[in-house]
């Protein structure tokens, strides 16, 4: 029997969406707030990215980062996360707090409410000096973000994936790095940032998710409804993604770095996204190709040929992209490329057996069932559904995957277009950002 619990949906008087997942199996309560923005242009993306890191420096009630940290520690080391993410061509400013369930502490404070209050304070009650965020906090936020942008190249695998996205989506908004750019960051505080932020709060969809021991959903909603008051109007759409369906040019790009291992990403376009009738076939396609250790690419590149330790695929289902990632020896580059081309062709010609379909489906179903055992994953998956206007229940997803036919997988495979190779190889020259 599937143990799962659904999200109950509420809307506050100020059009903030609240989704409650009552779930007593976790030892903690998890509250997560997303502000969703279109991934628009370099300047705006940089400004948006900066805001969470300014807010994190201090609020009216907790005017320093130290005061924020002290409050969190008092709340039994509540875990605060502030970040910026990209889903399709949307930039998401994320704030979350995870706090122990009230039944595990001896104090008198209602921790769940304290967490709700804290998030409100951080996001809606910033520290303002003469009509602008505190100058020192803007500077610290900028320093932090600058280092974070530069640090992209420290994690080579991640760097290669991001560069591959940039090359394959050049000219499209998806190519914007969700943390913005150094150039954009420099200009970010030319105008009044606080004024800008007020507009962000006024016009952006704000989605709150609460997963945990929330027995009285109505009371919890009322509490949020009274607390999260902000005048809002003319909200922007939840999804701002444009799917490109043609006019692709094959590109091969490489950079050198002082590294031991060559890292490659191959970019594939596939115009099938969540609301497409072939979406579940796409999930199975990705699994057969490279999502698992029984997948075609892993089997041939690692198990049969011993050419890599890792080779896998990553699906971006809002924009319709798949990346194939691998770490190899530079001498084997051509061989690995040939194997990739061959496998993509085999997929579109139906050269994959019934076992691989069956196993992939079972593993996917296993994965979806496991998802409901992780409070963070529940929210992540649900948000993707929201953005794509398709909130499928877990049961529906599982049934739909089970029903995918081989023909449908082939149909997906025929639409897959390998457009880009990006390669980072050992050498002396450094790459620039």
């Amino acid at each position: 029997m599937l143990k799962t619990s659904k999200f109950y949906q509420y809307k506050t008087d100020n059009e903030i969406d609240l989704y409650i997942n009552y779930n007593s199996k976790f030892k903690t309560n998890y509250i997560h707030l997303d502000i969703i923005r279109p991934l628009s242009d370099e300047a705006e993306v940089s400004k948006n990215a900066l805001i969470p890191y300014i807010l994190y420096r201090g609020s009216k009630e907790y005017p320093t980062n130290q005061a924020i940290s002290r409050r969190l520690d008092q709340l039994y080391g509540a875990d605060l996360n502030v970040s910026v993410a990209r889903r399709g061509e949307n930039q998401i400013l994320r704030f979350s707090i995870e706090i122990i369930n009230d039944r595990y502490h001896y104090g008198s404070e209602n921790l769940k409410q304290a967490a709700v209050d804290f998030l409100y304070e951080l996001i809606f009650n910033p520290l303002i000096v003469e009509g602008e965020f505190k100058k020192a906090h803007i500077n610290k936020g900028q320093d932090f973000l600058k280092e974070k942008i530069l640090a992209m190249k420290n994690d080579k695998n991640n760097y290669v994936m991001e560069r591959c996205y940039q090359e394959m989506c050049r000219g499209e908004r998806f190519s914007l790095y969700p943390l913005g750019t150094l150039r954009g960051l420099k200009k970010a505080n030319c105008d009044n940032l606080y004024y800008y932020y007020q507009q962000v709060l006024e016009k952006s969809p704000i989605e709150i998710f609460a997963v945990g021991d929330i027995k009285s959903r109505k009371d919890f909603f009322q509490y949020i409804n009274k607390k999260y008051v902000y005048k809002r109007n003319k909200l922007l759409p939840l999804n701002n993604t444009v799917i490109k369906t043609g006019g692709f040019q094959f590109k091969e790009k490489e950079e050198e770095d002082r590294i031991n291992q060559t890292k490659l990403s191959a970019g594939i376009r596939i115009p099938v996204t969540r609301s497409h009738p072939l979406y579940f076939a796409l999930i199975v396609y990705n699994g057969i190709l490279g999502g698992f250790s029984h997948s075609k690419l892993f089997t041939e590149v690692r198990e049969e040929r011993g050419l890599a330790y890792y080779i896998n695929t990553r699906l971006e289902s809002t924009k319709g992209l798949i990346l194939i990632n691998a770490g190899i020896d530079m001498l084997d580059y051509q061989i690995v490329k040939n194997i990739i081309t061959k496998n993509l062709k085999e997929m579109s010609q139906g050269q994959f057996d019934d076992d691989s379909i069956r196993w992939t489906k079972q593993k996917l179903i296993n994965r979806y069932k496991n998802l409901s055992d992780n409070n963070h994953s529940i929210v992540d998956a649900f948000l993707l559904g929201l953005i794509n206007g398709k909130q499928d229940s877990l049961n529906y997803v599982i049934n739909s995957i089970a029903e995918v036919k081989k023909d449908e997988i082939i149909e997906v495979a025929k639409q897959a277009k390998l457009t880009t190779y990006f390669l980072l190889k050992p050498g002396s020259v450094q790459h620039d950002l």
Partner: protein
Amino acid sequence: MIYKKFKEIDENYYEKSLKSGLRVILIPRSSYNKKYAVLSVNVGSVDLKLKDNNNIIYGFPPGTAHFMEHILFENREGSIIDDFSQLGSSVNAYTSFNNTNYYFNATDNFYKSLKCLFSFVLNPHFDQNKIEHEKSVIKQEINMYEDSPSWQSFHQLLQGLYYEYPIKYNIAGTSQSVDQINQEILQDFFNKYYNLDNMNLIVIGDINHEKLFDWLTDKFSDFGSEHIDFQKIYPEEPNGVRIKKNEIAMSISRPIITLGFKENRCFNDQRKIVRQDMLSNMVLEMIFGKSNDNYHSLYDKNLIDENFTFNFLQEKNTGFVKIYGETSHINQSINSIVDIINNWHRKINKDDFEIVKHKYIGRYFRSLNSLEALSSQVIKYLNLGQNYFDLINIIENISLNDIIDQYNKLLLDQEQVEVIIRKISK
């Protein structure tokens, strides 16, 4: 069978040692879909030497335990991974300093998956071709780690801290040591270490304890109590640190500093080791936690950034502090951190202590959510002869004096290792 109920944390715990020597631990989680099982073999990267009951000494090249972990997935025609895929389960493994862990997660087909797990871990076949094939995969794995700055900083730190203790070797070994591995070495290694009385099975999920124990008793009914006598041998580790200052260069955005302190005191009473682990982590939190001044004075002077971390890692025969930071002001940062450590005893604050205790209680509860994270904690504490579910009592009973005592022994005016990763310039 041992059954314990931990009321304060809503957990149940079953443990049974089977006649075959296998120890089984079950943590039931009726509300989870996932069923997780890990077969943990008491052998890790540090176990490079042993003496058997005929006083014969066996030595193994660094990386043997990790190689074994890889090669067991290749031990017959057809793929082990496919056996699990057929059942919809996911199988994987990892090697740590002290253990080799083989695990799967399943939703349906738990017992079939469990059968597959034992089948591939206990029935090796060391084929020379497959050994050679796996060498090339592992060399790519080593290459991948060597390109990771955080991995390098950790590796270099261990190089600096230890003269002899094999924790200083890369878990996967080196290209050279991996090349030395052959059929005979693997067979010897397997014969000594891969016996049921040298393994723990940890199961977490919606599983009935009686059914599990019956199934396992039945499965291993033909196994006697197969006890292989041997003694693990570790080299004597001198006090003090081996390399005080260790510098390398990598292609990174800004320099990385890592500081280390070594704790070599060993206790016969394992409860004391667990306490030492907790005390050391709490004292670091009191010194460098984001709640207090020191962290912010470093941060405001750009001597550290958000990536600053500090922790104490307790292993079976040793433990060490690792402080990690990224900064453009290398020397100033190191000096300030060391200064803060050596002057901390002048500004100890009782309120800070209570807050840190709160924080650790919260962190403990959070660690119980994920089955994977929980299982690795359970294994860590098993190695130390303790039950992870008792930890909450240990935390609650810690006093400020215990913390100060640990500070005096571990940190105050102690020798440290500095690792600096500089930035390669164009």
